[in-house]
């Protein structure tokens, strides 16, 4: 029987990772990821999970350690947040270029400065181009499911890439939610032992992370880009298999009452559930509104996104991070760019919200939609605004 529990999401993530027959974890604790680190180390210390927990002195070392361990063929896990992720930054493209399956949980948190420990997406956005598969979750159950699926995706012979699971810090990590842990036997069946492509072993020496100058570097980058683009097929297949076994379906782009809606809101992460309430309220008032939730950030789901927004007249993109001096928030600029060549495309505007843990309320979303309904398209087209920021 699947085990049901009321549990803090960070601990539930550690429990789920513990179900994945990992060989090694190297995690440096940082708020709001700490409870993943603590609980996973506890599970290993208590002998409930048979793995090595490598205590490291920094996130740079944590990522280096899992890269090395993954190179030996081990199933590895790490988790971090904010400044920790920034410290790992140097190693992220190395892990993906070496095509090493690694699963990382990210408890998304605002980056300094000013020093802040609360949630936004400013830690993951600068990692966008590092070649990692990047997926967002909306609640505790999704955090459990995706953390398990991530190993299968990362280690699949047609993928062989690191995967990060974005779990909003505090909003998710520190919530106690009702969750269901899949039955161990079914997880074991879903996730067989890793079959590595190559391993670091003195009996059969190989070179990983070889030097390559202008004569091979561009071909390697092309190969890496094709690999991550191609990974979407496997991600879809893994989600299909998961739905069959565990009954919960996942899509690259999730929609809520979006069909035929004139105005669409687009969110990522835990904001989605708040936005659903806002959509319900406005629908009850007879407004033609719907919600699109971007789950898969990399590889970017172009086809699914175009399909989801093709009938909308206006699209409001919500960003929880800023691209300073750039074309609005990072999600906004990607969505705009993805729709550029479409003949029928919605007018698109951008609100930046929830920075540094500022509450995102239902009234924020109803307020945005009400304003966009009122204004004519020309006035709000292509605008980017810091929603709710105090101004003179």
């Amino acid at each position, binding site marked *: 029987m699947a085990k049901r529990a009321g549990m803090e999401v960070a601990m539930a993530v550690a429990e789920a990772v513990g179900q994945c027959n990992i060989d090694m974890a190297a995690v440096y604790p940082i708020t709001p990821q700490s409870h993943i680190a603590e609980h996973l180390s506890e599970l290993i210390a208590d002998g409930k999970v048979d793995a090595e927990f490598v205590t490291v002195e920094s996130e740079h070392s944590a990522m280096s350690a899992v890269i090395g361990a993954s190179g030996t063929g081990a199933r590895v896990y790490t988790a971090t947040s904010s400044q920790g992720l920034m410290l790992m930054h140097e190693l992220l493209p190395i892990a993906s270029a070496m095509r090493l399956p690694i699963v990382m949980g990210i408890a998304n948190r605002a980056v300094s400065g000013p020093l802040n420990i609360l949630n936004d997406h400013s830690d993951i956005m600068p990692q966008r181009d590092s070649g990692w598969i990047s997926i967002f979750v909306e609640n505790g159950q999704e955090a459990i499911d995706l953390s398990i699926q991530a190993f299968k995706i990362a280690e699949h012979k047609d993928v*062989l890439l690191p995967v990060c699971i974005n779990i909003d810090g505090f909003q998710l990590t520190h919530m106690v939610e009702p969750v269901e842990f899949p039955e161990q036997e079914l997880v074991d069946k879903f996730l067989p032992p890793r079959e590595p492509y*190559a391993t670091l072993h003195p009996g059969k020496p190989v070179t990983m992370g070889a030097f390559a100058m202008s004569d091979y570097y561009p071909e390697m980058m092309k190969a890496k880009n094709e690999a991550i683009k191609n990974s979407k097929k496997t991600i879809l297949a893994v989600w299909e298999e998961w739905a069959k076994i565990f009954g919960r379906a996942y899509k690259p782009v999730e929609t809520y009452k979006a069909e035929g809606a004139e105005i669409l809101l687009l969110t990522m992460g835990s904001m989605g559930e708040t936005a659903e309430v806002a959509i319900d309220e406005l629908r009850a008032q007879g407004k033609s509104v719907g919600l699109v939730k971007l789950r898969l950030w990399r590889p970017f789901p172009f086809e699914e996104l175009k399909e989801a927004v093709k009938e909308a007249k206006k699209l409001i993109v919500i960003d929880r991070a800023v691209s300073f001096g750039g074309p609005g928030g990072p999600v906004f600029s990607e969505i705009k760019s993805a729709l550029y060549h479409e003949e029928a495309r919605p007018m698109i505007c951008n609100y930046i919200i929830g920075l540094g843990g500022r509450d995102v309320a239902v009234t924020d979303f109803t307020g945005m939609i009400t304003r966009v309904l009122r204004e004519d398209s020309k006035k709000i087209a292509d605008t980017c605004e810091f929603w709710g920021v105090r101004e003179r």
Partner: protein
Amino acid sequence: MTKKKGPDTWQEITTGCVVFQPGSASEYHTGSWRAQRPVWNNQKCIKCGICYIFCPEGCIQQSEDGFFQANMDYCKGCGICAHECWPRAIAMTEEG
């Protein structure tokens, strides 16, 4: 750069660029980067071996007659041997 044996297209590159043949770095003749080459004057050389010790490439070897020479497949022309040589027996000369 020296032409190396290797994949022509991106499709032929191994996953993660793993090199399955150990020791293949020796096939990479980095000497092609060289702008200057060390030339030994064996009339000044005292066979002390300081050039051999200091060469960061490890490409200087002692010949049977006790004098030293660099393997030009790997010598990058850094000039450290010439700089360290006590009797000034090594001169760096421009590559043609």
